[in-house]
């Protein structure tokens, strides 16, 4: 009898279970799934209060299902429970997006800070460089001005020297430089290579002027008239050029800067046919070269 009763109870329970399982409303199935998703996802961490509300709503629906089975109350309560679970997920998503916004705003400010710091650093460097550049420019300007002044002074000195020389001897500008011509009859006795006493005074004056521009190279050229042999004239002209060179060196002109050339009768400036022409051809020319060089080169 007892066994029969147990079988009856078991059958009833099984029937009830099958009956209940078969009539679970769709709303409740959806609510359970929605709650499972919310309670196991990010919502559990970021929106726990909302998940709890969804849990209570689902529990209410489950109780209704147990008490009233597939009634409109059960379906409506399950529907609301599903929505509560969805609200929990939406709330979680809102929280996360707000966190993202806050992080992005912080990043923006931090980036701005870096940019401002870098810009200030660059600005400081630029200012320093500019100040250095200005200082350098000022120094360059001072140096340029000094050079210009020195050049102007040198040019004036050269002009003054040329004017002074013009008073002492014939001076002319040629491509090879400034040529100072001294008459041979003033410097030497006939057929002699020793400078006359009055020639020394003249050469002293020329030397004074030359010594003001002592950095120039000088070429002393000796010339004769056509009387006598070529070889003797060459020898004579070289000896006279050497005499003038030696005197200028003795007066203090740098020896390395002076060379002497005896050119004989080969470069007449006047007619050797008369006495005046021959007198003009007997001469010593001091060429003050425009370009500097040394004899050692």
């Amino acid at each position: 009898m007892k066994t029969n009763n147990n079988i009856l109870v078991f059958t009833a329970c099984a029937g009830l279970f099958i009956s209940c399982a078969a009539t679970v409303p769709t709303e409740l199935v959806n609510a359970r799934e929605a709650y499972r998703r919310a309670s196991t996802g990010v919502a559990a961490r970021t929106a726990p209060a909302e998940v709890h509300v969804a849990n209570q709503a689902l529990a209410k629906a489950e109780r209704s299902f147990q008490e009233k089975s597939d009634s409109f109350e059960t379906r409506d309560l399950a529907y609301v429970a599903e929505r509560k679970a969805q609200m929990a997920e939406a709330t979680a998503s809102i929280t996360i997006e707000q966190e993202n916004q806050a992080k992005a705003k912080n990043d923006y400010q931090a980036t701005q800070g870096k940019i401002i710091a870098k810009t200030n650093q660059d600005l400081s460097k630029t200012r320093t460089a500019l100040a250095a550049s200005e200082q350098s420019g000022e120094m360059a300007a001072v140096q340029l001005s000094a050079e210009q002044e020195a050049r102007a002074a040198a040019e004036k000195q050269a002009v003054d020297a040329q004017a002074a020389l013009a008073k002492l001897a014939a001076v002319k500008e040629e491509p090879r430089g400034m040529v100072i011509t001294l008459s041979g009859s003033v410097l030497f006795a006939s057929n002699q290579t020793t400078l006359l006493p009055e020639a020394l005074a003249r050469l002293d004056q020329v030397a004074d002027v030359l010594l003001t521009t002592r950095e120039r190279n000088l070429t002393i050229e000796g010339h004769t008239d056509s009387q006598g042999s070529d070889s003797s004239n060459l020898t004579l002209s070289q000896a006279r050029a050497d005499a003038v060179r030696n005197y200028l060196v003795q007066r203090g002109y740098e020896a390395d800067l002076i060379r002497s050339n005896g050119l004989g009768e080969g470069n007449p400036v006047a007619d050797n046919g008369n006495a005046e022409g021959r007198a003009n051809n007997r001469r010593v020319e001091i060429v003050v070269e425009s370009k500097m060089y040394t004899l050692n080169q």
Partner: protein
Amino acid sequence: MRHVSKIRIMVFAAATAATTIIAAGCTTSAPLRTDASTSGIRAAEEAGATEVPQASLHLQLAKEELERANALAAKDEKEQAVSMLARAEADAELAVLLSREETEKSEAKAAVERVRQLRQDNKFAVVTNNPYPKGVSNENE
């Protein structure tokens, strides 16, 4: 013992019946309170639910459920009407949240884009790796 139980059952049944009658009387006489539903629907519309597809769907559901609740109330099925109103309120509330979610997403995306653009425009100053390359957001979706 058996006698006592019968009396208890009868008293309980009488009390239940009285309560049901009173409740039925109250339900019949009290008008349907749709305030929460209508204000929820209005809030969803103000939150821009019509512009967000998912929110718009729930807003529409809320409106339909409110209509059904009114229809049930008109047919004197107050319990079902009240229960249906709960659906309308829930859908309206969800529509509000979905609208807000979309707004927050858009603002977060814009904020990330501003950072990316700032770093792009100032590469000389920002030598660190850009965690916001173009076209990639850090949204946790």
